[in-house]
Protein backbone atom coordinates (compact mmCIF):
# COMPACT_ATOMS: atom_id res chain seq x y z
CA UNK A 1 0.00 0.00 0.00
CA UNK A 2 1.15 3.54 -0.58
CA UNK A 3 2.63 5.25 2.43
CA UNK A 4 0.52 8.36 2.38
CA UNK A 5 -3.14 9.01 1.96
CA UNK A 6 -3.72 11.48 -0.81
CA UNK A 7 -6.96 13.28 -0.26
CA UNK A 8 -8.56 14.57 -3.42
CA UNK A 9 -9.51 17.84 -1.82
CA UNK A 10 -8.13 19.13 1.44
CA UNK A 11 -11.50 20.49 2.54
CA UNK A 12 -12.81 16.92 2.62
CA UNK A 13 -11.09 16.60 5.95
CA UNK A 14 -13.17 19.41 7.31
CA UNK A 15 -16.32 17.85 5.90
CA UNK A 16 -15.58 14.47 7.35
CA UNK A 17 -15.34 16.00 10.77
CA UNK A 18 -18.42 18.17 10.39
CA UNK A 19 -20.17 17.23 13.58
CA UNK A 20 -23.50 15.46 13.67
CA UNK A 21 -24.94 16.91 10.52
CA UNK A 22 -26.97 13.82 9.78
CA UNK A 23 -28.17 12.86 13.22
CA UNK A 24 -31.82 13.65 12.91
CA UNK A 25 -33.37 15.21 15.96
CA UNK A 26 -36.70 13.52 15.43
CA UNK A 27 -36.05 10.11 13.93
CA UNK A 28 -38.76 8.33 12.04
CA UNK A 29 -38.81 4.91 13.68
CA UNK A 30 -40.56 2.99 10.91
CA UNK A 31 -38.58 4.65 8.15
CA UNK A 32 -35.34 3.76 9.91
CA UNK A 33 -36.48 0.21 10.60
CA UNK A 34 -37.33 -0.33 6.94
CA UNK A 35 -34.04 1.20 5.80
CA UNK A 36 -31.84 -0.93 8.05
CA UNK A 37 -33.85 -4.13 7.49
CA UNK A 38 -33.68 -3.72 3.72
CA UNK A 39 -29.94 -3.08 3.86
CA UNK A 40 -29.35 -6.16 6.02
CA UNK A 41 -31.58 -8.30 3.80
CA UNK A 42 -29.79 -7.02 0.73
CA UNK A 43 -26.50 -8.16 2.22
CA UNK A 44 -27.85 -11.70 2.53
CA UNK A 45 -29.11 -11.69 -1.04
CA UNK A 46 -25.76 -10.41 -2.33
CA UNK A 47 -24.08 -13.26 -0.44
CA UNK A 48 -26.49 -15.71 -2.01
CA UNK A 49 -25.93 -14.32 -5.46
CA UNK A 50 -22.13 -14.57 -5.15
CA UNK A 51 -22.18 -17.91 -3.35
CA UNK A 52 -25.18 -19.68 -4.83
CA UNK A 53 -23.99 -23.20 -4.02
CA UNK A 54 -26.24 -23.62 -0.97
CA UNK A 55 -29.26 -22.50 -2.93
CA UNK A 56 -28.42 -24.76 -5.87
CA UNK A 57 -27.90 -27.68 -3.51
CA UNK A 58 -31.13 -26.74 -1.80
CA UNK A 59 -32.94 -27.00 -5.12
CA UNK A 60 -31.26 -30.17 -6.31
CA UNK A 61 -31.68 -32.05 -3.05
CA UNK A 62 -35.51 -32.07 -2.95
CA UNK A 63 -35.66 -33.08 -6.59
CA UNK A 64 -33.33 -35.98 -5.79
CA UNK A 65 -35.62 -36.91 -2.91
CA UNK A 66 -38.56 -36.97 -5.26
CA UNK A 67 -36.82 -38.96 -7.93
CA UNK A 68 -34.85 -41.43 -5.82
CA UNK A 69 -37.12 -41.86 -2.84
CA UNK A 70 -40.11 -41.89 -5.14
CA UNK A 71 -38.53 -44.71 -7.16
CA UNK A 72 -37.79 -46.68 -4.02
CA UNK A 73 -41.48 -47.34 -3.42
CA UNK A 74 -42.55 -47.27 -7.04
CA UNK A 75 -43.76 -50.87 -7.07
CA UNK A 76 -45.97 -50.56 -4.03
CA UNK A 77 -49.55 -51.60 -4.97
CA UNK A 78 -51.79 -48.71 -5.88
CA UNK A 79 -53.88 -47.42 -3.01
CA UNK A 80 -51.28 -48.54 -0.49
CA UNK A 81 -50.52 -44.92 0.40
CA UNK A 82 -54.11 -43.75 0.80
CA UNK A 83 -55.62 -42.03 -2.18
CA UNK A 84 -52.32 -41.29 -3.89
CA UNK A 85 -51.87 -42.59 -7.39
CA UNK A 86 -48.20 -43.11 -6.76
CA UNK A 87 -45.70 -42.79 -3.95
CA UNK A 88 -44.20 -39.82 -5.78
CA UNK A 89 -47.50 -38.00 -5.45
CA UNK A 90 -47.65 -38.91 -1.78
CA UNK A 91 -44.07 -37.82 -1.16
CA UNK A 92 -44.33 -34.34 -2.78
CA UNK A 93 -45.93 -32.69 0.25
CA UNK A 94 -43.33 -34.23 2.57
CA UNK A 95 -40.45 -32.96 0.45
CA UNK A 96 -41.86 -29.42 0.23
CA UNK A 97 -42.19 -29.23 3.99
CA UNK A 98 -38.96 -30.96 4.83
CA UNK A 99 -36.99 -28.70 2.50
CA UNK A 100 -38.48 -25.58 4.05
CA UNK A 101 -37.82 -26.99 7.49
CA UNK A 102 -34.18 -27.87 6.83
CA UNK A 103 -33.49 -24.46 5.27
CA UNK A 104 -35.07 -22.61 8.16
CA UNK A 105 -33.25 -24.76 10.69
CA UNK A 106 -29.93 -23.62 9.20
CA UNK A 107 -30.87 -19.95 9.28
CA UNK A 108 -29.10 -19.37 12.58
CA UNK A 109 -25.71 -20.33 11.15
CA UNK A 110 -24.91 -17.07 9.30
CA UNK A 111 -25.87 -15.11 12.42
CA UNK A 112 -23.64 -17.35 14.51
CA UNK A 113 -20.74 -16.74 12.14
CA UNK A 114 -21.39 -13.00 12.34
CA UNK A 115 -21.15 -13.30 16.10
CA UNK A 116 -17.96 -15.31 15.92
CA UNK A 117 -16.24 -13.07 13.39
CA UNK A 118 -17.23 -9.88 15.19
CA UNK A 119 -19.36 -8.66 12.31
CA UNK A 120 -22.34 -8.53 14.63
CA UNK A 121 -20.51 -5.96 16.76
CA UNK A 122 -20.40 -3.73 13.71
CA UNK A 123 -24.19 -3.89 13.59
CA UNK A 124 -24.61 -3.45 17.32
CA UNK A 125 -22.56 -0.25 17.56
CA UNK A 126 -24.80 1.32 14.91
CA UNK A 127 -27.81 3.35 16.08
CA UNK A 128 -30.36 0.84 14.78
CA UNK A 129 -34.01 1.77 15.21
CA UNK A 130 -34.46 -1.74 16.61
CA UNK A 131 -31.95 -4.54 16.81
CA UNK A 132 -34.70 -6.93 15.81
CA UNK A 133 -34.10 -5.75 12.26
CA UNK A 134 -31.13 -8.16 12.32
CA UNK A 135 -33.49 -11.04 13.05
CA UNK A 136 -36.12 -9.72 10.69
CA UNK A 137 -33.66 -9.59 7.80
CA UNK A 138 -32.67 -13.24 8.35
CA UNK A 139 -36.30 -14.30 8.51
CA UNK A 140 -37.20 -12.45 5.30
CA UNK A 141 -34.23 -13.99 3.54
CA UNK A 142 -34.87 -17.56 4.66
CA UNK A 143 -38.60 -17.42 3.98
CA UNK A 144 -38.03 -16.08 0.45
CA UNK A 145 -35.59 -18.89 -0.14
CA UNK A 146 -38.04 -21.49 1.23
CA UNK A 147 -40.81 -20.19 -1.00
CA UNK A 148 -38.55 -20.37 -4.02
CA UNK A 149 -37.61 -23.95 -3.15
CA UNK A 150 -41.25 -24.86 -2.63
CA UNK A 151 -42.09 -23.45 -6.07
CA UNK A 152 -39.36 -25.58 -7.65
CA UNK A 153 -40.57 -28.71 -5.88
CA UNK A 154 -44.18 -28.04 -6.87
CA UNK A 155 -43.06 -27.63 -10.47
CA UNK A 156 -40.85 -30.73 -10.23
CA UNK A 157 -43.68 -32.82 -8.76
CA UNK A 158 -46.03 -31.66 -11.49
CA UNK A 159 -43.44 -32.72 -14.04
CA UNK A 160 -43.17 -36.12 -12.33
CA UNK A 161 -46.93 -36.55 -12.59
CA UNK A 162 -48.21 -35.48 -9.17
CA UNK A 163 -50.52 -32.83 -10.64
CA UNK A 164 -50.68 -29.12 -9.89
CA UNK A 165 -53.00 -27.55 -7.29
CA UNK A 166 -55.10 -24.56 -8.35
CA UNK A 167 -54.22 -20.94 -7.46
CA UNK A 168 -55.89 -21.11 -4.02
CA UNK A 169 -54.05 -24.33 -3.36
CA UNK A 170 -50.71 -22.83 -4.34
CA UNK A 171 -51.37 -19.78 -2.15
CA UNK A 172 -52.22 -22.10 0.74
CA UNK A 173 -48.99 -24.04 0.23
CA UNK A 174 -47.14 -20.71 0.35
CA UNK A 175 -48.91 -19.79 3.59
CA UNK A 176 -48.05 -23.13 5.18
CA UNK A 177 -44.40 -22.90 4.12
CA UNK A 178 -44.34 -19.33 5.44
CA UNK A 179 -45.70 -20.25 8.88
CA UNK A 180 -43.46 -23.28 9.33
CA UNK A 181 -40.33 -21.46 8.10
CA UNK A 182 -41.12 -18.50 10.35
CA UNK A 183 -41.39 -20.65 13.45
CA UNK A 184 -38.32 -22.76 12.72
CA UNK A 185 -36.26 -19.70 11.72
CA UNK A 186 -37.18 -18.07 15.01
CA UNK A 187 -35.98 -21.10 16.96
CA UNK A 188 -32.76 -21.34 14.96
CA UNK A 189 -31.99 -17.62 15.42
CA UNK A 190 -32.75 -17.94 19.12
CA UNK A 191 -30.26 -20.81 19.32
CA UNK A 192 -27.71 -18.76 17.39
CA UNK A 193 -27.71 -16.28 20.28
CA UNK A 194 -28.01 -18.83 23.07
CA UNK A 195 -25.36 -21.39 22.09
CA UNK A 196 -21.65 -20.71 22.55
CA UNK A 197 -20.52 -21.37 18.97
CA UNK A 198 -21.23 -22.77 15.54
CA UNK A 199 -20.05 -26.27 16.49
CA UNK A 200 -22.81 -26.51 19.08
CA UNK A 201 -25.38 -25.07 16.69
CA UNK A 202 -24.44 -27.56 13.99
CA UNK A 203 -24.74 -30.36 16.56
CA UNK A 204 -28.26 -29.25 17.44
CA UNK A 205 -29.21 -29.00 13.77
CA UNK A 206 -27.75 -32.45 13.21
CA UNK A 207 -29.74 -34.15 15.95
CA UNK A 208 -32.99 -32.38 15.08
CA UNK A 209 -33.03 -32.59 11.33
CA UNK A 210 -33.55 -36.22 10.33
CA UNK A 211 -35.33 -37.46 13.49
CA UNK A 212 -38.02 -34.84 12.98
CA UNK A 213 -38.35 -35.98 9.39
CA UNK A 214 -38.78 -39.63 10.33
CA UNK A 215 -41.12 -38.81 13.18
CA UNK A 216 -43.48 -37.04 10.82
CA UNK A 217 -45.88 -38.08 8.10
CA UNK A 218 -43.45 -36.99 5.38
CA UNK A 219 -42.49 -40.48 4.23
CA UNK A 220 -45.35 -42.72 5.34
CA UNK A 221 -48.92 -42.09 6.50
CA UNK A 222 -49.79 -42.07 10.19
CA UNK A 223 -51.61 -45.40 9.85
CA UNK A 224 -48.31 -47.18 9.03
CA UNK A 225 -46.79 -46.23 12.37
CA UNK A 226 -46.87 -48.02 15.72
CA UNK A 227 -49.02 -46.29 18.28
CA UNK A 228 -46.18 -44.50 20.11
CA UNK A 229 -44.78 -43.10 16.87
CA UNK A 230 -48.25 -41.94 15.89
CA UNK A 231 -48.31 -39.93 19.08
CA UNK A 232 -44.90 -38.42 18.35
CA UNK A 233 -45.78 -37.69 14.73
CA UNK A 234 -49.03 -36.05 15.82
CA UNK A 235 -47.06 -33.73 18.10
CA UNK A 236 -44.60 -32.87 15.35
CA UNK A 237 -45.36 -29.51 13.72
CA UNK A 238 -44.02 -30.88 10.42
CA UNK A 239 -47.03 -33.23 10.20
CA UNK A 240 -49.39 -30.28 10.49
CA UNK A 241 -47.69 -28.68 7.51
CA UNK A 242 -47.44 -31.88 5.46
CA UNK A 243 -50.97 -33.24 5.80
CA UNK A 244 -52.90 -30.16 4.54
CA UNK A 245 -50.56 -29.84 1.55
CA UNK A 246 -50.94 -33.54 0.79
CA UNK A 247 -54.71 -33.24 1.12
CA UNK A 248 -54.99 -30.39 -1.35
CA UNK A 249 -52.78 -32.29 -3.77
CA UNK A 250 -55.20 -35.24 -3.70
CA UNK A 251 -58.53 -33.46 -3.47
CA UNK A 252 -59.87 -30.79 -5.75
CA UNK A 253 -62.67 -29.95 -3.35
CA UNK A 254 -61.07 -29.12 -0.02
CA UNK A 255 -62.05 -26.56 2.56
CA UNK A 256 -61.12 -25.67 6.11
CA UNK A 257 -63.36 -28.41 7.50
CA UNK A 258 -61.77 -31.20 5.50
CA UNK A 259 -60.27 -33.91 7.70
CA UNK A 260 -56.56 -34.06 6.93
CA UNK A 261 -55.15 -36.20 9.73
CA UNK A 262 -56.42 -38.81 12.17
CA UNK A 263 -54.31 -38.17 15.26
CA UNK A 264 -54.56 -40.68 18.13
CA UNK A 265 -56.67 -38.16 20.05
CA UNK A 266 -59.03 -37.21 17.26
CA UNK A 267 -59.39 -35.92 13.77
CA UNK A 268 -57.58 -32.81 12.65
CA UNK A 269 -59.25 -30.54 10.10
CA UNK A 270 -57.51 -28.40 7.50
CA UNK A 271 -58.30 -25.26 9.47
CA UNK A 272 -57.08 -26.78 12.74
CA UNK A 273 -53.76 -27.74 11.13
CA UNK A 274 -53.31 -24.15 9.95
CA UNK A 275 -54.12 -22.92 13.45
CA UNK A 276 -51.53 -25.28 14.94
CA UNK A 277 -48.90 -23.90 12.55
CA UNK A 278 -49.91 -20.36 13.37
CA UNK A 279 -49.70 -21.17 17.07
CA UNK A 280 -46.31 -22.84 16.57
CA UNK A 281 -44.88 -19.77 14.83
CA UNK A 282 -46.30 -17.45 17.48
CA UNK A 283 -45.01 -19.51 20.40
CA UNK A 284 -41.59 -19.85 18.74
CA UNK A 285 -41.36 -16.09 18.17
CA UNK A 286 -42.43 -15.28 21.70
CA UNK A 287 -40.25 -17.88 23.39
CA UNK A 288 -37.04 -16.60 21.82
CA UNK A 289 -37.61 -13.00 22.92
CA UNK A 290 -35.61 -13.39 26.16
CA UNK A 291 -32.73 -15.03 24.23
CA UNK A 292 -32.67 -12.25 21.66
CA UNK A 293 -32.96 -9.58 24.32
CA UNK A 294 -29.94 -11.04 26.07
CA UNK A 295 -27.96 -11.43 22.87
CA UNK A 296 -28.88 -8.06 21.46
CA UNK A 297 -29.26 -5.99 24.62
Amino acid sequence: MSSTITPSKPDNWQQIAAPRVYATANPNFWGELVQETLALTQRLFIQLQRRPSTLIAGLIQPVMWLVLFGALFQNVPQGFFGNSHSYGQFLGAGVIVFTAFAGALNSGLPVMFDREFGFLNRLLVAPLASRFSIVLASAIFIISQSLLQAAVIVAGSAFLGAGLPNATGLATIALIVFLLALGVTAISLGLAFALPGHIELIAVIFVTNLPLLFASTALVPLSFMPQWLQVVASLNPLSYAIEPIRYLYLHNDWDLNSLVMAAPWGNVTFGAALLVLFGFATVALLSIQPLLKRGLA
Partner: protein
Amino acid sequence: MTPAVLIQNLQKRYGTVEAVKDVSFQIEPGEIFGLLGPNGAGKTTTLRALCTLTTPDAGKIEISGISALTNPKAARQRLGYVAQEVALDKVLTGRELLRLGAALYHLPGKVAKQRIEMVLDLLGLQEYADKKTGTYSGGIRKRLDLAAGLLHSPDVLVLDEPTVGLDIESRFVVWDFLRKLRSAGTTVLITSHYLEEVDALADRVAIIDRGLVIAQGTPTELKDKVGGDRITLRIREFSPIDEAETAKTLLQSLPFVQEAIINSAQGNSLNLVVKAQTDALIVIQQALVQASLPIFGIAQSRPSLDDVYLAATGKTLMDAELAAASSRDLKAERKQNMK
Protein backbone atom coordinates in the same frame (compact mmCIF):
# COMPACT_ATOMS: atom_id res chain seq x y z
CA MET B 1 -17.21 22.97 27.50
CA THR B 2 -18.91 19.56 27.51
CA PRO B 3 -16.26 16.89 27.29
CA ALA B 4 -16.38 14.70 24.19
CA VAL B 5 -16.14 11.61 26.39
CA LEU B 6 -16.67 11.34 30.11
CA ILE B 7 -16.09 8.07 31.91
CA GLN B 8 -16.52 8.03 35.67
CA ASN B 9 -15.86 5.19 38.09
CA LEU B 10 -16.49 2.53 35.48
CA GLN B 11 -16.67 -1.03 36.80
CA LYS B 12 -17.16 -4.30 35.00
CA ARG B 13 -16.62 -7.84 36.14
CA TYR B 14 -16.92 -11.06 34.18
CA GLY B 15 -17.65 -13.85 36.63
CA THR B 16 -14.86 -13.63 39.17
CA VAL B 17 -12.59 -11.50 37.00
CA GLU B 18 -12.69 -7.78 37.63
CA ALA B 19 -11.86 -6.60 34.13
CA VAL B 20 -12.36 -2.95 35.02
CA LYS B 21 -12.10 -1.98 38.71
CA ASP B 22 -12.35 1.78 38.64
CA VAL B 23 -11.66 3.74 35.49
CA SER B 24 -12.30 7.45 35.08
CA PHE B 25 -11.11 9.83 32.40
CA GLN B 26 -12.34 12.71 30.37
CA ILE B 27 -11.58 13.59 26.75
CA GLU B 28 -11.84 17.13 25.47
CA PRO B 29 -13.26 17.75 22.00
CA GLY B 30 -10.68 17.63 19.26
CA GLU B 31 -7.91 15.81 21.06
CA ILE B 32 -6.34 12.43 20.53
CA PHE B 33 -6.59 10.53 23.77
CA GLY B 34 -4.52 7.41 24.32
CA LEU B 35 -5.40 4.56 26.62
CA LEU B 36 -2.13 2.77 27.30
CA GLY B 37 -1.67 -0.47 29.13
CA PRO B 38 -0.61 -4.09 28.77
CA ASN B 39 -2.94 -6.66 27.27
CA GLY B 40 -5.63 -7.63 29.72
CA ALA B 41 -5.48 -4.32 31.58
CA GLY B 42 -9.12 -3.50 30.82
CA LYS B 43 -8.70 -1.28 27.77
CA THR B 44 -10.95 -3.22 25.47
CA THR B 45 -13.62 -3.70 28.13
CA THR B 46 -13.63 0.06 28.71
CA LEU B 47 -14.06 0.67 24.99
CA ARG B 48 -16.79 -1.93 24.69
CA ALA B 49 -18.69 -0.26 27.50
CA LEU B 50 -18.22 3.13 25.85
CA CYS B 51 -19.52 1.77 22.54
CA THR B 52 -22.57 0.19 24.24
CA LEU B 53 -21.43 -3.35 23.44
CA THR B 54 -21.34 -4.29 27.07
CA THR B 55 -23.24 -2.93 30.06
CA PRO B 56 -20.98 -1.86 32.92
CA ASP B 57 -21.77 -2.91 36.49
CA ALA B 58 -21.37 0.63 37.70
CA GLY B 59 -20.20 4.02 36.51
CA LYS B 60 -21.12 6.85 34.23
CA ILE B 61 -20.43 7.08 30.49
CA GLU B 62 -21.24 10.18 28.48
CA ILE B 63 -20.54 11.11 24.90
CA SER B 64 -20.86 14.84 24.24
CA GLY B 65 -23.00 15.00 27.37
CA ILE B 66 -25.27 12.12 26.31
CA SER B 67 -25.42 9.09 28.56
CA ALA B 68 -24.49 5.89 26.76
CA LEU B 69 -26.37 3.94 29.41
CA THR B 70 -29.73 5.68 29.36
CA ASN B 71 -29.69 6.93 25.79
CA PRO B 72 -27.61 4.38 23.90
CA LYS B 73 -29.02 5.12 20.47
CA ALA B 74 -28.06 8.78 20.54
CA ALA B 75 -24.66 7.82 21.92
CA ARG B 76 -24.11 5.32 19.09
CA GLN B 77 -24.93 8.00 16.57
CA ARG B 78 -22.07 10.12 17.89
CA LEU B 79 -19.51 7.33 18.00
CA GLY B 80 -17.48 5.60 15.36
CA TYR B 81 -15.98 2.31 16.52
CA VAL B 82 -13.08 0.58 14.85
CA ALA B 83 -12.57 -2.78 16.54
CA GLN B 84 -9.20 -4.40 16.98
CA GLU B 85 -9.98 -7.22 14.64
CA VAL B 86 -11.33 -6.08 11.33
CA ALA B 87 -14.60 -7.92 10.71
CA LEU B 88 -15.57 -7.54 7.08
CA ASP B 89 -17.98 -9.55 5.03
CA LYS B 90 -15.59 -11.25 2.60
CA VAL B 91 -18.21 -11.59 -0.10
CA LEU B 92 -19.17 -7.92 -0.24
CA THR B 93 -17.12 -5.28 -2.00
CA GLY B 94 -15.78 -2.35 -0.05
CA ARG B 95 -18.38 -0.03 -1.50
CA GLU B 96 -21.22 -2.44 -0.68
CA LEU B 97 -20.00 -2.70 2.88
CA LEU B 98 -19.94 1.08 3.20
CA ARG B 99 -23.44 1.22 1.75
CA LEU B 100 -24.60 -1.20 4.41
CA GLY B 101 -22.90 0.92 7.05
CA ALA B 102 -24.54 4.09 5.73
CA ALA B 103 -27.96 2.47 5.91
CA LEU B 104 -27.36 1.28 9.45
CA TYR B 105 -26.64 4.90 10.40
CA HIS B 106 -29.73 5.97 8.45
CA LEU B 107 -28.01 8.34 6.08
CA PRO B 108 -30.40 9.40 3.32
CA GLY B 109 -29.54 7.88 -0.07
CA LYS B 110 -28.02 10.95 -1.65
CA VAL B 111 -25.99 11.86 1.41
CA ALA B 112 -24.81 8.26 1.74
CA LYS B 113 -23.52 8.22 -1.82
CA GLN B 114 -21.63 11.44 -1.33
CA ARG B 115 -20.16 10.38 2.01
CA ILE B 116 -19.07 7.00 0.66
CA GLU B 117 -17.16 8.63 -2.18
CA MET B 118 -15.64 11.07 0.29
CA VAL B 119 -14.32 8.45 2.69
CA LEU B 120 -13.09 6.29 -0.19
CA ASP B 121 -11.16 9.32 -1.48
CA LEU B 122 -9.81 10.25 1.92
CA LEU B 123 -8.43 6.81 2.57
CA GLY B 124 -7.20 6.23 -0.95
CA LEU B 125 -9.52 3.28 -1.43
CA GLN B 126 -11.11 4.08 -4.79
CA GLU B 127 -9.14 1.47 -6.69
CA TYR B 128 -10.21 -1.25 -4.22
CA ALA B 129 -13.80 -0.13 -3.71
CA ASP B 130 -15.38 -2.57 -6.14
CA LYS B 131 -13.28 -5.57 -5.22
CA LYS B 132 -14.48 -8.10 -2.67
CA THR B 133 -13.05 -7.40 0.76
CA GLY B 134 -11.85 -11.00 0.91
CA THR B 135 -9.10 -10.02 -1.52
CA TYR B 136 -7.80 -7.14 0.60
CA SER B 137 -4.46 -7.04 2.38
CA GLY B 138 -4.37 -6.29 6.11
CA GLY B 139 -3.60 -2.63 5.57
CA ILE B 140 -6.41 -2.13 3.08
CA ARG B 141 -8.84 -3.92 5.36
CA LYS B 142 -7.91 -1.57 8.17
CA ARG B 143 -8.36 1.45 5.92
CA LEU B 144 -11.81 0.28 4.91
CA ASP B 145 -12.64 -0.22 8.56
CA LEU B 146 -11.52 3.34 9.32
CA ALA B 147 -13.62 4.59 6.41
CA ALA B 148 -16.66 2.75 7.75
CA GLY B 149 -16.12 4.28 11.17
CA LEU B 150 -16.18 7.77 9.70
CA LEU B 151 -19.19 7.52 7.37
CA HIS B 152 -21.60 9.22 9.74
CA SER B 153 -19.26 12.00 10.94
CA PRO B 154 -18.96 10.77 14.50
CA ASP B 155 -18.05 13.22 17.24
CA VAL B 156 -15.67 10.65 18.60
CA LEU B 157 -13.79 7.98 16.67
CA VAL B 158 -12.86 5.07 18.93
CA LEU B 159 -10.07 2.76 17.79
CA ASP B 160 -9.04 -0.37 19.62
CA GLU B 161 -5.37 -1.12 18.95
CA PRO B 162 -5.51 0.40 15.48
CA THR B 163 -2.09 -0.76 14.34
CA VAL B 164 -1.75 -4.23 15.85
CA GLY B 165 -0.70 -6.67 13.18
CA LEU B 166 -0.06 -4.01 10.56
CA ASP B 167 3.20 -3.61 8.70
CA ILE B 168 5.26 -0.51 9.47
CA GLU B 169 4.14 1.32 6.38
CA SER B 170 0.45 0.76 7.07
CA ARG B 171 1.01 1.85 10.61
CA PHE B 172 2.31 5.22 9.45
CA VAL B 173 -0.69 5.54 7.15
CA VAL B 174 -2.97 5.12 10.15
CA TRP B 175 -0.96 7.61 12.22
CA ASP B 176 -1.02 10.13 9.43
CA PHE B 177 -4.73 9.63 9.07
CA LEU B 178 -5.47 10.11 12.75
CA ARG B 179 -3.44 13.30 12.89
CA LYS B 180 -5.28 14.72 9.90
CA LEU B 181 -8.55 13.79 11.49
CA ARG B 182 -7.61 15.58 14.66
CA SER B 183 -6.63 18.71 12.81
CA ALA B 184 -10.06 18.58 11.21
CA GLY B 185 -11.59 18.61 14.69
CA THR B 186 -12.66 15.02 15.34
CA THR B 187 -12.02 13.62 18.78
CA VAL B 188 -10.07 10.39 18.71
CA LEU B 189 -9.71 7.73 21.39
CA ILE B 190 -7.15 5.01 20.80
CA THR B 191 -5.97 2.15 22.93
CA SER B 192 -2.55 0.75 22.46
CA HIS B 193 0.08 -1.30 24.15
CA TYR B 194 2.72 0.29 21.93
CA LEU B 195 4.43 3.05 23.89
CA GLU B 196 5.80 4.82 20.86
CA GLU B 197 2.39 4.94 19.27
CA VAL B 198 0.73 6.66 22.19
CA ASP B 199 3.74 8.90 22.69
CA ALA B 200 3.73 9.96 19.05
CA LEU B 201 0.00 10.45 18.63
CA ALA B 202 -1.76 11.26 21.86
CA ASP B 203 -2.36 14.71 23.26
CA ARG B 204 -3.24 13.13 26.56
CA VAL B 205 -2.81 9.65 27.97
CA ALA B 206 -4.33 7.50 30.66
CA ILE B 207 -2.19 4.56 31.69
CA ILE B 208 -4.32 1.68 32.79
CA ASP B 209 -3.20 -1.39 34.68
CA ARG B 210 -5.26 -4.24 36.08
CA GLY B 211 -8.50 -2.32 35.72
CA LEU B 212 -7.26 0.91 37.30
CA VAL B 213 -6.05 4.21 35.88
CA ILE B 214 -2.60 4.60 37.39
CA ALA B 215 -1.50 7.83 35.68
CA GLN B 216 -3.08 10.46 33.53
CA GLY B 217 -1.92 13.59 31.71
CA THR B 218 -0.06 14.74 28.63
CA PRO B 219 2.88 12.50 27.76
CA THR B 220 5.24 15.35 28.68
CA GLU B 221 3.59 15.91 32.04
CA LEU B 222 3.74 12.24 32.87
CA LYS B 223 7.37 11.98 31.92
CA ASP B 224 8.24 15.15 33.86
CA LYS B 225 6.51 13.73 36.89
CA VAL B 226 8.76 10.69 36.79
CA GLY B 227 11.51 13.24 36.64
CA GLY B 228 15.13 13.25 35.59
CA ASP B 229 16.72 12.28 32.32
CA ARG B 230 18.04 8.94 31.21
CA ILE B 231 21.64 8.53 30.12
CA THR B 232 22.96 5.42 28.43
CA LEU B 233 26.73 5.14 28.53
CA ARG B 234 28.98 2.60 26.88
CA ILE B 235 32.60 2.54 28.00
CA ARG B 236 33.46 0.13 25.20
CA GLU B 237 31.25 -1.70 22.77
CA PHE B 238 31.46 -4.63 25.17
CA SER B 239 32.84 -3.46 28.48
CA PRO B 240 34.45 -5.87 30.92
CA ILE B 241 32.41 -6.01 34.11
CA ASP B 242 35.17 -4.67 36.40
CA GLU B 243 35.61 -1.62 34.18
CA ALA B 244 31.85 -1.06 34.21
CA GLU B 245 31.84 -1.34 38.01
CA THR B 246 34.64 1.24 38.29
CA ALA B 247 32.73 3.63 36.08
CA LYS B 248 29.56 3.04 38.05
CA THR B 249 31.21 3.87 41.38
CA LEU B 250 32.80 6.93 39.83
CA LEU B 251 29.56 8.24 38.32
CA GLN B 252 27.50 7.54 41.43
CA SER B 253 29.71 10.00 43.28
CA LEU B 254 28.55 12.80 40.97
CA PRO B 255 25.92 14.93 42.71
CA PHE B 256 23.30 14.89 39.95
CA VAL B 257 23.34 11.13 39.35
CA GLN B 258 20.37 9.56 41.11
CA GLU B 259 20.67 5.98 40.01
CA ALA B 260 23.10 3.84 38.07
CA ILE B 261 22.50 0.33 36.79
CA ILE B 262 24.76 -1.95 34.78
CA ASN B 263 22.83 -3.45 31.91
CA SER B 264 24.50 -6.77 31.22
CA ALA B 265 22.11 -7.47 28.35
CA GLN B 266 23.69 -4.60 26.41
CA GLY B 267 27.39 -5.29 26.79
CA ASN B 268 27.55 -3.97 30.36
CA SER B 269 26.44 -0.51 29.39
CA LEU B 270 25.46 1.89 32.16
CA ASN B 271 21.93 3.20 32.52
CA LEU B 272 21.80 6.38 34.59
CA VAL B 273 18.94 8.42 35.95
CA VAL B 274 20.10 12.02 36.37
CA LYS B 275 18.52 15.25 37.49
CA ALA B 276 17.56 17.19 34.39
CA GLN B 277 20.44 19.61 33.82
CA THR B 278 22.08 20.82 30.68
CA ASP B 279 25.72 19.98 31.27
CA ALA B 280 25.28 16.44 32.54
CA LEU B 281 26.92 14.85 29.51
CA ILE B 282 29.94 17.17 29.66
CA VAL B 283 30.50 16.58 33.36
CA ILE B 284 30.28 12.82 32.90
CA GLN B 285 32.69 12.91 29.98
CA GLN B 286 35.20 14.96 31.96
CA ALA B 287 34.96 12.61 34.93
CA LEU B 288 35.61 9.60 32.70
CA VAL B 289 38.55 11.26 30.94
CA GLN B 290 40.12 12.12 34.28
CA ALA B 291 39.80 8.49 35.36
CA SER B 292 41.37 7.42 31.99
CA LEU B 293 38.27 5.53 30.95
CA PRO B 294 37.33 5.48 27.26
CA ILE B 295 33.86 6.33 25.90
CA PHE B 296 32.34 4.28 23.09
CA GLY B 297 28.94 5.95 23.15
CA ILE B 298 26.83 8.17 25.30
CA ALA B 299 23.25 9.33 24.84
CA GLN B 300 20.82 11.36 26.87
CA SER B 301 17.04 11.01 26.62
CA ARG B 302 13.88 12.10 28.37
CA PRO B 303 12.09 9.40 30.31
CA SER B 304 9.73 7.35 28.17
CA LEU B 305 6.17 6.36 28.94
CA ASP B 306 7.63 2.99 29.83
CA ASP B 307 9.48 4.70 32.67
CA VAL B 308 6.18 6.22 33.74
CA TYR B 309 4.63 2.79 33.76
CA LEU B 310 7.64 1.38 35.57
CA ALA B 311 7.47 4.08 38.23
CA ALA B 312 3.78 3.44 38.85
CA THR B 313 3.74 -0.34 38.83
CA GLY B 314 7.28 -1.42 39.56
CA LYS B 315 7.51 -3.41 36.34
CA THR B 316 8.08 -2.60 32.73
CA LEU B 317 5.27 -2.75 30.22
CA MET B 318 7.03 -5.63 28.49
CA ASP B 319 7.14 -7.66 31.73
CA ALA B 320 3.48 -6.92 32.41
CA GLU B 321 2.70 -7.99 28.88
CA LEU B 322 4.45 -11.33 29.37
CA ALA B 323 2.85 -11.90 32.77
CA ALA B 324 -0.57 -11.08 31.37
CA ALA B 325 -0.05 -13.36 28.40
CA SER B 326 0.63 -16.35 30.61
CA SER B 327 -2.40 -15.81 32.84
CA ARG B 328 -4.93 -15.04 30.16
CA ASP B 329 -7.95 -17.17 29.48
CA LEU B 330 -8.35 -16.66 25.77
CA LYS B 331 -11.46 -18.78 25.57
CA ALA B 332 -13.23 -16.72 28.23
CA GLU B 333 -12.17 -13.49 26.55
CA ARG B 334 -13.44 -14.66 23.23
CA LYS B 335 -16.76 -15.35 24.84
CA GLN B 336 -16.91 -11.88 26.34
CA ASN B 337 -16.30 -10.32 22.97
CA MET B 338 -18.95 -12.41 21.30
CA LYS B 339 -22.38 -10.97 21.56
